């Protein structure tokens, strides 16, 4: 019994330590972010941030577009099969439009970016730790947070919301194609229905979620990389851990935000 308490206590302390480290890293990165901004910051950091934006955003576009299109079709078909029984097929439009704007656009994007870029951050920084590049930065009078983390975080803050919009667009478009083939509803008319079903607060909620997801993915990936101790196998473990932890935390954050927006929307 004592052993069980010991294990539970140890695990709790370890998780608290992790969350504490994430917070410390977040604030340090926010302080160092100015260096990565255009005009006011360091042009080398800004250039690194733009490079990261292309890697996180542009390179992930085809994958996210395809994922969102497939998910849009699936959602529309599954919704239609039930709603048709009640003669409410037109509600598929609301389901897809609101579902993708509020929920699936940001969530699909976050999961894809977590797998692609979160793991890449962990592997890159982990390798830099193993090969003493992080130490080299320090002794060269650079701040690793400003040099490595800030451009990645800034890039994620820009790329993830943009990708979420793209994911929502393609998901909704897939719903439109389904409606066209199943009910011969014109695409323009479909888009008009979509615009009436989406409210501004849905878009704002999606953007807030996207920024939170970007923060989680960037910081979990970077922290996992910075915590690497040992050799190449530790880099592999950190990469896996980055994806698992960030995906888990994104889903938990999504649940929290959805609950907040649900109750805020009721009042």
């Amino acid at each position: 019994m004592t052993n069980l308490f010991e294990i539970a206590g140890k695990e709790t302390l370890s998780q608290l330590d992790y969350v504490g480290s994430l917070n410390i890293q977040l604030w340090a990165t926010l302080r160092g972010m100015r260096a990565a901004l255009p005009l006011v910051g360091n042009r080398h950091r800004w250039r690194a941030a733009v490079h990261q934006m292309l890697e996180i955003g542009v390179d992930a576009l085809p994958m996210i577009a395809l994922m969102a299109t497939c998910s849009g079709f699936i959602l529309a078909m599954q919704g239609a099969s039930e709603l048709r029984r009640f003669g409410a097929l037109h509600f598929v439009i609301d389901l897809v439009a609101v579902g993708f704007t509020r929920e699936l656009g940001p969530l699909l994007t976050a999961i894809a970016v977590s797998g692609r870029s979160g793991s890449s951050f962990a592997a890159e920084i982990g390798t830099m730790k193993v090969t003493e590049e992080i130490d080299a930065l320090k002794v060269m009078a650079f701040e690793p947070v400003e040099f490595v983390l800030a451009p990645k975080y800034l890039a994620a803050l820009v790329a993830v919301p943009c990708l979420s919009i793209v994911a929502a667009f393609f998901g909704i478009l897939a719903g439109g194609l389904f409606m066209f083939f199943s009910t011969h509803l014109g695409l323009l008319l479909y888009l008009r229905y979509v615009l009436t079903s989406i409210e501004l607060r849905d878009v704002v909620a999606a953007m807030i979620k996207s920024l939170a997801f970007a923060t989680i993915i960037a910081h979990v990936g970077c922290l996992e990389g910075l915590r690497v101790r040992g050799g190449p196998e530790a880099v592999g473990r950190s990469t896996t851990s980055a994806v698992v932890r960030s995906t888990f935390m994104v889903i938990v954050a999504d649940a929290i935000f959805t609950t907040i927006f649900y109750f805020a929307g009721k009042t």
Partner: protein
Amino acid sequence: MAIISVRDLVVEYDGRRVLDGLNLDIEAGQITVLLGGSGSGKSTLLRQILGLEHPKSGSISIKGTDITTCSQADLKTIRRSVGVAFQSAALFNSLSLEDNVALTLREHTALAPSVIDLIVWLKLAVVGLADFGTLHPQELSGGMKKRAAVARALALDPEILVLDEPSAGLDPIVAAELDQLILFLKKTFQITALVVTHELESAFCIADRIAMLFDGRLLAVGTKDEIRANQHPRVRQFLDRVPANPVHTPALAAYLERYVQSQEAKP
């Protein structure tokens, strides 16, 4: 006059004492070699001198500034006068050799790009890599990487050059070339060098002074001749290459014989 002064330095990892009240002075304009076996505390002392870790107690002064208590800004200023070549070279793999050397010049000085290009060429020429500037670290041999790391360490014309295991893993010819390079740098730039190694031949070739570490303590400090004449049993054991735990071949043979007999006796 001592340019680096270590006083009563105590370092512990998880309660295990790695450096135990260490005192060391590194004189300006000399090559000091830190000699010692694996686990003697050489790398730990080096990381302390570079300000990468904090000691449990004691002080380390570089050019009169105590780096264990000074501000981050002061530490950065000190670091600009120290060039470091790590054991793994720690070159940035995403950058070419030229960019690796130019990095500190671009970020810490306001020099014109044409001047930076010239300085980079000079530094690479000093280490014999002027024709390889456009290559990336992964395209270089081990010896070339070490020399490139020295070129990068020299970029800001540091007063102190720190080399961690410069000849480790290199063939005797390349190792001898690196020794000649270190002597050339001292003669040409009047540089203070701190070299960490466990290679006796290299140490006695380049050193003005040798400090010998054992179990986190300094066993002996002196000139090459003083160290050669030192009669401390541990110093003699290291210099005469006497094994600490010789393999007891008869005991091992007897154990193996018993094992084979027990295997044969099984039904």
